[in-house]
């Protein structure tokens, strides 16, 4: 039995941050979960799906984040407890609906988990979603470790129900993707039934203003709740003049930095878990004798600015307090927080000697790293159909010769910006952004614009965000060629199903919505090709480039990682008697140009060679080798 369903209150287990959030929801008796996959949030719905039957939870991968929030809100309105989880740009996608349900209010507990990604380790932006809490006047909780992630999630449902408002829980990559000790709570006996009652309309002008006033009253109530919250506490000496005010991941970085510098007797730490609205009385009580504070948080100076407003309002009580943080330049308002950064801020404010690594040692090891470590850049996996698709696109654009270019999108295909995609992709912004941009480029002909434009996007992205732009291209007859790289799943985040997959989050059969049917319905020409049939695909793509108006090419081949689970693959090898190495004139096409990690340049033999450990047996290289030296093992040649 997994830790998620363990009914042993008080037992300590190792839990991933996202599992802890899921467990908190289970302990709160969550009934409904909707989400779109996105790092670092994906494991939350996946965890709930694993125990969906046992705890009678409905879980779905929604088409996109705003749909996820809408369907989850329906559950809340019907009196159920619902959770939505998303990565940071997903909060932007659902913001339109969020800015309406704050006014109409909700019923059953509704928790929105916003998973931010400081340092953009797997994101296209660095966003601080906490700003949405202030923007939408919604209560905000920031867990500092896995235990709090569980306990706060559980509490967030109660809070949401009490206030009749969605509650935002903000996590970050280093929490969602860290594993730590978690002491389990009890599991609920839940027996909720769903029923619609009441009115949820934000439309009427006078009513809206009244709703807005009510929203502010609800936030006042949240503020009262927060004053007594166990998630806010002070740690440190009784009469510290210098206090670190911190939230979320900043708490442990701060505590360790203070400890490492031996400042435990001089510096106190005020840890705030409920960061909007701020628990003002609690904070004021702990800043009475303080003259300096340092604010530690990730990423924007959200807490810092709100604290400064509070200090201005409390100037009579507190007197002047010097505030250090992002504005003072002691900590960056970008990138990831670390213990080292907090320590650096402390030593520079206090005029202490900074802790540094032995300079000579660092020079030596850094030099070694430079001399010995060849660069390791992310690449399409061995056997990835996108490698072939981008090769086809590159070849067709070259044949066309009009300086055409590719607008890109989110997901595995975005790796196509680099070497492994032959540097074909020239723009990447957000889900669906590539086709929208391309549709604009496709209307510039009256300004002497004559470059062909190809918009690529993955299949999951197509459903998520590309359809409105494609409709736009159709009704305005934009000159755009869209290439959908259909690999049969949401690959980048771990192969979650989408509307074309034919199964749901629990693996149960589901109806499919075909991409080519959608295109036909919109009224655009669509062709479906296998990108591994390279010469045919190049010819067809070239032909489509010569046409005008909106057109769609679907390159359909299942992600090899999905495929490999289902069948035994063929073993390929390079016949080194046939490969003639550098005499071929192919410029080491398979290993150097096509660039698949499954093909190695054999230095000794000066011939290509298949790395049988890495090779997935996709066989596309065999169709590309100019002299047919790549063969299937055991097959008649």
């Amino acid at each position: 039995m997994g830790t998620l369903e363990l009914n042993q209150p008080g037992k300590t287990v190792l839990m991933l941050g996202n599992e802890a959030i899921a467990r908190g929801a289970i302990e709160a008796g969550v009934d409904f979960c909707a989400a779109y996959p996105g790092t670092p949030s994906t494991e939350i719905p996946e965890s709930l799906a694993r125990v969906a039957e046992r705890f009678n939870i409905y879980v779905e991968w929604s088409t996109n984040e705003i749909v996820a929030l809408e369907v989850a809100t329906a559950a809340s309105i019907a009196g159920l407890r619902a959770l939505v989880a998303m990565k940071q740009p997903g909060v932007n996608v659902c913001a339109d609906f969020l800015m309406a349900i704050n006014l109409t209010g909700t019923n059953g507990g509704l928790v929105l988990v916003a998973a931010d990604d400081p340092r953009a380790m797997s994101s296209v932006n660095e966003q601080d979603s906490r700003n949405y809490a202030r923007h939408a006047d919604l209560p905000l909780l920031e867990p500092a470790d896995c235990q709090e992630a569980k306990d706060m999630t559980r509490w967030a449902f109660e809070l949401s129900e009490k206030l009749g408002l969605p509650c935002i829980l903000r996590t970050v990559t280093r929490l969602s993707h860290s594993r730590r000790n978690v002491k389990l709570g009890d599991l609920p006996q839940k027996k909720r039934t769903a029923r619609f009652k009441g009115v949820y309309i934000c439309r009427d002008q006078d009513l809206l203003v009244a709703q807005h006033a009510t929203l502010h009253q609800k936030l006042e109530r949240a503020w009262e709740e927060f004053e007594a919250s166990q998630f806010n506490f002070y740690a440190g000496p009784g009469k510290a003049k210098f206090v670190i005010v911190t939230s979320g991941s900043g708490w442990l970085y701060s505590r360790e930095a203070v400890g490492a510098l031996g400042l435990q007797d001089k510096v106190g730490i005020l840890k705030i878990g409920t960061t909007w609205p701020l628990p003002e009385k609690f904070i004021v009580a702990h800043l009475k004798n303080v003259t300096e504070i340092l604010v530690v948080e990730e990423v924007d100076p959200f807490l810092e600015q709100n604290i400064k407003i509070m200090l201005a309002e409390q100037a009579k009580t507190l007197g002047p307090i010097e505030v250090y943080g992002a504005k003072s330049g002691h900590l960056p308002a970008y990138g990831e927080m670390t213990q080292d950064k907090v320590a650096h801020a402390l030593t520079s404010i206090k005029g202490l000697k900074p802790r540094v690594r032995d300079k000579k040692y660092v020079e030596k090891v850094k030099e070694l790293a430079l001399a010995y470590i060849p660069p390791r850049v992310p690449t399409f996996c061995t056997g990835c159909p996108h490698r072939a698709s981008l090769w086809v696109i590159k070849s067709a654009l070259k044949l066309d010769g009009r300086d055409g270019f590719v607008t890109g999108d989110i997901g595995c295909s975005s790796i196509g910006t680099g070497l492994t995609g032959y540097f074909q992709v020239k723009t990447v912004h957000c889900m669906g952004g590539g086709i929208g941009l391309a549709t604009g480029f496709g209307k510039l002909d009256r300004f002497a614009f004559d470059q062909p434009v190809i918009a690529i996007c993955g299949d999951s992205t197509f459903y998520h965000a590309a359809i409105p732009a494609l409709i736009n291209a159709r009704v305005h007859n934009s000159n755009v060629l869209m290439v959908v790289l259909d690999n049969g799943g949401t690959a980048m985040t771990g192969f979650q199903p989408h509307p074309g997959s034919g199964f749901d989050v629990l693996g149960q059969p589901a109806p499919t919505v075909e991409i080519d049917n959608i295109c036909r319905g919109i009224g655009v020409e669509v062709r479906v090709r296998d990108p591994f049939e390279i010469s045919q695909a190049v010819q067809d793509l070239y032909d489509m480039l010569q046409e005008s108006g909106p057109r769609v090419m679907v390159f359909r081949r299942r992600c090899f990682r999905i495929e490999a689970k289902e069948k035994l693959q063929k073993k390929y090898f390079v016949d080194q008697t046939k490969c003639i190495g550098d005499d071929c004139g192919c410029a080491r096409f398979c290993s150097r140009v096509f660039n698949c990690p499954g093909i190695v340049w054999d230095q000794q033999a000066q011939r290509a060679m298949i790395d049988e450990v890495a090779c997935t047996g996709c066989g596309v290289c065999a169709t590309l080798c100019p002299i047919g030296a790549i063969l299937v093992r055991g097959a008649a040649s």
Partner: protein
Amino acid sequence: MTLEKDPLNLIIAGVGGQGNILASQIVATAGIKEGLYVTVSETYGASQRGGPVMSHVRFSAKAQCGPLIPEGEADVIVGLEPIEALRIIGDYGNPKTRVIVSPRPIYPISVLAGQAKYPPVEEVVQKLVGVVAEVRVVKAIEEGETGLAANVVMVGALAGSGMLPIKINNFEESLREIVSPRDLDLNLRAFRKGVELAGGKAAVLAPVKPTRKRVIRVDNRLNQ
């Protein structure tokens, strides 16, 4: 329980797809069984696709640690791949760091394409020896093997090395919890192979003092 060094900082480094996450999960669960506070921080997402990956694993008898190890403060490094071990030393190593490394390279694209050279593995190991307190080379993958469960062999080597204050049976219990029953036998065998390769068989009850001596066991038939 007290630790001689608290927190004790471990980094498991490798390349996406080597099973870094499972390795750190086994080690961390064993740490919790030992009654310690454990924090694991993992890199994944885009790094899954052939990029360098590492897990920071931190043990403390006193309190929960932050997710990241400060620069230069790794006590133990497990390299699932030789140059990845060297890469970690650059940011997190110090002269007292101890290293367990698998000598089997995973070639970056630039090397596969013949555009960059992968340094001879013996040389990488020699360089490692020059900058840390101890290096143990553990040949987790034999010639011709695919590297299946090599991550678990390396966890076994870590357990057997006695560098962590965690008893071997706690590692095995953690394997039983985490690995699916179907793969348990294979993984237990891999784990025990690692324990033997590291030279330790008995359960280690107390934290081990850092060794001054450098133990190097480089197999001559290393696959380069």
